[in-house]
């Protein structure tokens, strides 16, 4: 079973991973974006870490809802409302249970990913975070490690795609040949699940 501490560790591990990878995310965002993805997410997850410490939410749902709210407030770029909605909707779907099963979490995360798709209007293959998140959710029933691998493969598979959403879509064919920064950061978020589980 997964408790509030597990979800706190997930957010902390994501913050640490975003810290480590911030430069790479910004580099990915330079040729096809506005070169702020790493620093934006770093600011957001640093704030998430601080607010979770300060407020100490007691349930899995409350941890994710608070984290999502914080991302919407602090990121400043499109990834804020997108990741914020992902975590907030996932958290709401978990309700106020003190512990949730792996299956309940997988189902809730699917709800969160659907909310992101509704918000941003992106479909698989549009070269967005959805390309990492959808395969991750599909693999989550197997294991966290399988979800991590699926997210990473999904992110890498965005490289040959032409962007159809967001600022990169204005570049048309010139967006081909670059990995999508949002898919790359989504893969970090999913990989942090493995760390949180201590696997």
């Amino acid at each position, binding site marked *: 079973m997964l408790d509030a501490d597990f979800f706190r560790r997930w957010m902390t591990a994501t913050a640490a991973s975003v810290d480590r990878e911030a430069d790479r995310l910004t580099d990915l965002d330079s040729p096809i974006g*506005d070169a*702020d993805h790493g620093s*934006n997410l770093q600011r957001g997850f640093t704030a998430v870490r601080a607010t979770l410490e300060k407020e100490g939410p007691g349930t899995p749902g409350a941890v994710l809802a608070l984290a999502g*709210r914080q991302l*919407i*407030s602090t990121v*400043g*770029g*499109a*990834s*804020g*409302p*997108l990741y*914020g*909605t992902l975590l*907030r909707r996932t958290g709401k779907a978990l309700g106020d249970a003190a512990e949730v099963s792996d299956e309940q979490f997988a189902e809730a995360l699917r709800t969160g990913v659907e*909310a992101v798709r509704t*918000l*941003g209007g992106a479909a698989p293959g549009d070269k967005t975070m959805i390309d990492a998140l959808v395969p991750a959710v599909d693999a989550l029933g197997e294991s966290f490690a399988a979800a991590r691998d699926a997210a990473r493969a999904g992110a890498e598979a965005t490289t040959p795609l032409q962007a159809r959403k*967001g*600022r990169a879509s204005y570049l048309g064919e010139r967006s081909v040949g670059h990995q999508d920064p949002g898919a790359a950061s989504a893969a970090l978020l999913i990989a942090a699940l493995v760390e949180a589980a201590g696997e």
Partner: protein
Amino acid sequence: MSDTRTVGIVLVSHSAEVAASVAELAKGLAGGGAGVPVAAAGGTEGGGFGTSAELVAAAAASVDRGAGVAVLTDLGSAVLTVKALLAEGDELPPDTRLVDAPFVEGAVAAVVTASTGADLAAVVAAASEAYSYRKV
């Protein structure tokens, strides 16, 4: 209609200067705005390019006169932030609408329409109709 409460207008841009300038322009072209509450929410709280949920929420609260609030945005994170705040339920005043409209032309149409004492639906419709104004 003189006792009608006026619809508030919020202008959200990635740039503080763009949001503030479009607000001034819209009020100017509406004959001073004639008492229409217009607020700009541009850029991040740190003064950079981007969108601040806090600035958007504060701007919406500042123009709410009880007749609804029409929010116009430029693109990307401005649109997504407003949508995320609307989905939150309690972050923006009741009867806040994200308007699908061109930013500059829509703002002018919204402020002029609001200055006549029109209701929120009419303000939203006027701003959206600004898309149909062809220049060539």
